[in-house]
């Protein structure tokens, strides 16, 4: 199957993909353990900051203002980067971004590039596009490398190989990196990857990165990472290409005060991440000799146009919402069929590709609100999910697809009609009480027809009471 980083057509539904994932005991155990651990770590370091709520407010306010004036900040960033000796490219969509990157690499006559872990390059399917042009992209983030060697897909935005445990990784490295007798000690596995990557760092002439932040005021790009492999990519090759979603911009250097407190604590549960790299254009005799910044739209302008949905663009990709989400914890990331899984993916993906192409994602949530509570920039994810559900239904109602009757839609319409009037509502209660006699066994209903059978697969239904509250009330007075 062709690699599809974002869904481009109404394809596999979340509930179906989830069903398969839920049966994978290894996945369930890995995910449960990993998310519980990282949740606990985050809770501790967030608890330490007495002004955490104020920081969240500040983060949200900065993002809100930036996104509102995105046009101005983008032009400011372009000018700043050019002033510092970098080149700026604008890409409307994935294909255009891939063409730009490919032509820069080809001009360097390179056949290999090293990469810093980047969701944005995953989003545009850069590795696959480069491969078609005969250019090999080598992932240097340990987890990305694992996923790449396995021919697998990332299942978490920060910990791409969260679905794999160390013995699976040992087997993979033995197969792919030419080792025998590796132990499954994390130290040993990391050393094997290190030996493989060092050779690449020293020989490959072009590096590709994403960007955590781009500062409009100075033209500085920032990458936050844990391993230091990113820093290798930023300093050793002679050409550096950074691809940045247009929403990753922050107005000024001082805004780091807020974001560099919010991001590490929310994502890895660390007070500060080990490596934070900043680069501004090019500097003679130090680091890459050429710097290219590719500014990517790829659906973001469309998200921007939606006053409720646009808050999805405030995301700083910390993954706290994934780690806290009770749905993600159980299904893993692959069920979302997008490079953006979890709660943020459930609101971002449908907006980037159009709700018709991802109509099951807004429903992949119990609306428990845990994601909103942990989001460092206060994205009201449940609010956007509900908003997008409204769009899914309106789309379905206004452009019905041929097929069987829409049972859910008819039922909802009927209930809306019935509940809009007291007499009709009371009649529904009475009819229900009579009708349920056929289905009640031992005081409960244990089998319901159609889609409702999903409920009774595990849960009995308590029936309409012999006397409703309103009947009791009127008998009482």
């Amino acid at each position, binding site marked *: 199957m062709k690699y599809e980083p974002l869904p481009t057509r109404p394809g596999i539904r979340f*509930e179906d993909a*989830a069903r398969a994932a*839920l049966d994978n005991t290894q996945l369930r155990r890995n995910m449960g353990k990993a998310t519980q651990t990282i949740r606990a770590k985050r809770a501790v370091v967030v608890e330490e900051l007495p002004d955490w709520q104020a920081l969240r407010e500040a983060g949200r306010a900065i993002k809100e203002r930036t996104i509102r004036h995105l046009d101005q900040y983008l032009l400011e960033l372009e000018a700043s980067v050019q002033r510092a000796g970098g080149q700026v490219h604008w890409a409307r969509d994935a294909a255009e971004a891939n063409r730009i990157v490919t032509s820069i690499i080809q001009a360097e006559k390179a056949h290999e590039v090293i990469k810093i872990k980047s969701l944005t390059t995953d989003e545009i399917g850069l590795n696959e596009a480069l491969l078609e042009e005969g250019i090999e992209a080598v992932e240097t983030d340990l987890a990305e490398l694992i996923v790449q060697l396995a021919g697998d897909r990332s299942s978490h935005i920060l910990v791409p190989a969260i679905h794999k445990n160390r013995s699976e990784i040992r087997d993979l490295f033995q197969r792919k990196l030419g080792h025998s007798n590796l132990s499954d000690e994390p130290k040993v596995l990391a050393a094997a990857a290190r030996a493989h990557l060092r050779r690449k760092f020293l020989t490959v002439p072009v590096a590709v990165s994403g960007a955590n932040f781009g500062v409009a005021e100075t033209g500085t790009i920032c990458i936050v990472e844990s391993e230091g492999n990113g820093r290798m990519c930023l300093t050793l090759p002679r050409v550096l290409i950074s691809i940045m979603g247009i929403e990753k911009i922050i107005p000024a250097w001082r805004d780091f005060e807020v974001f560099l407190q919010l991001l590490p604590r929310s994502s890895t549960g660390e007070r500060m991440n080990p490596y934070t790299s900043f680069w501004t254009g090019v500097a003679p005799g130090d680091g890459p000799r050429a710097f290219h910044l590719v500014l990517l739209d790829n659906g973001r302008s469309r998200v921007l146009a939606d006053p409720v949905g646009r808050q999805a663009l405030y995301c700083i990709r910390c993954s706290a919402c994934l780690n806290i989400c*009770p*749905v993600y914890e*159980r*299904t893993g990331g692959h069920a979302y069929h997008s490079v953006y899984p979890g709660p943020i993916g459930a609101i971002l993906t449908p907006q980037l590709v159009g709700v018709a192409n991802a109509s099951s994602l*807004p*429903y*992949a*949530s*119990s*609306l*428990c*609100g*845990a994601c*909103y*509570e942990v989001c460092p920039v206060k994205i009201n994810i*449940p609010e956007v999910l*509900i*908003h997008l*559900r*409204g*769009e*899914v*239904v*309106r789309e379905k109602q206004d452009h019905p697809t041929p097929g069987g009757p829409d049972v*859910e839609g008819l039922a*909802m*319409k009927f*209930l*809306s009609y019935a*509940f*809009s*009037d*007291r007499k009709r*509502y009371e009649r529904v*209660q009475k009819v*229900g009480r009579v009708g349920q006699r056929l289905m009640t066994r031992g005081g*409960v209903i*244990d089998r319901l027809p159609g*889609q*409702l059978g*999903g*409920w009774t*697969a*595990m*849960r*009995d*239904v*308590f*029936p*309409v*009471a012999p006397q*409703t*509250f*309103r*009947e*009791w*009330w009127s008998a009482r007075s």
Partner: protein
Amino acid sequence: MQVSLFITCFNDTIFPKTGQAVVHLLERLGHVVDFPADQTCCGQMHYNTGYQREAIPLVRRFVEVFRDSEVVVSPSASCVGMVRELYPRAAELAGDHELAKCVEHLIPRVFELTEFLVQKLGIEDVGAYFPHRVTYHPTCHSLRMISVGDAPLRLLRNVRGMELVTLPRAEECCGFGGTFAVKNADTSMAMLGDKLRCVLDTRAEYCVAADNSCLMHIGGALHRQRAGVGILHIAEILASTEKGGHR
């Protein structure tokens, strides 16, 4: 105080004892309860499933029925959350400024039962007696949508004769989520399975919450397993006294 009871459609229909408990409790505390009989459903199921146009008549109805109430009290955190957090959005969607204005005026007078008792009335001991082992599940909407905080626990801690046991991983969703439990039945079941394990680990006789919707979910599975653990809305405990249960 004159309290208008918003019973909610499923309490009215499936859990009438919860409503009776609220009436007994509030009357015992010296309040006058009225029940506007024209009330039906807040529209949450429609709204949250995406049938937002269909929810609007129900929003209008609620506002119409309760617009002149001194306070509106409901034994459902979830439905109160709908009114408080989503009615303004619904009014906006309807493009109805008059409705938006009415919603804005009504919202500060709508309370979930336990927040009404603890935060509005300042009562933590309602004089209840309930000689059973109980665990409390803080429902998502009570906890994170309308932020009742520890109001239910404050009330429960003062119930005489009751043994209150802490529920492990209490703040995690039980997997109900309205139509989520049907649309994503498998994932919902996986969540519910973990919740049941935690409830059973407490060896409680009753799992208690401020929302019968989540209790219908947890309780439906406990019943299916013949687990011998009951569900109970917090109002039914608070209404019970030494003179005998309220029922």
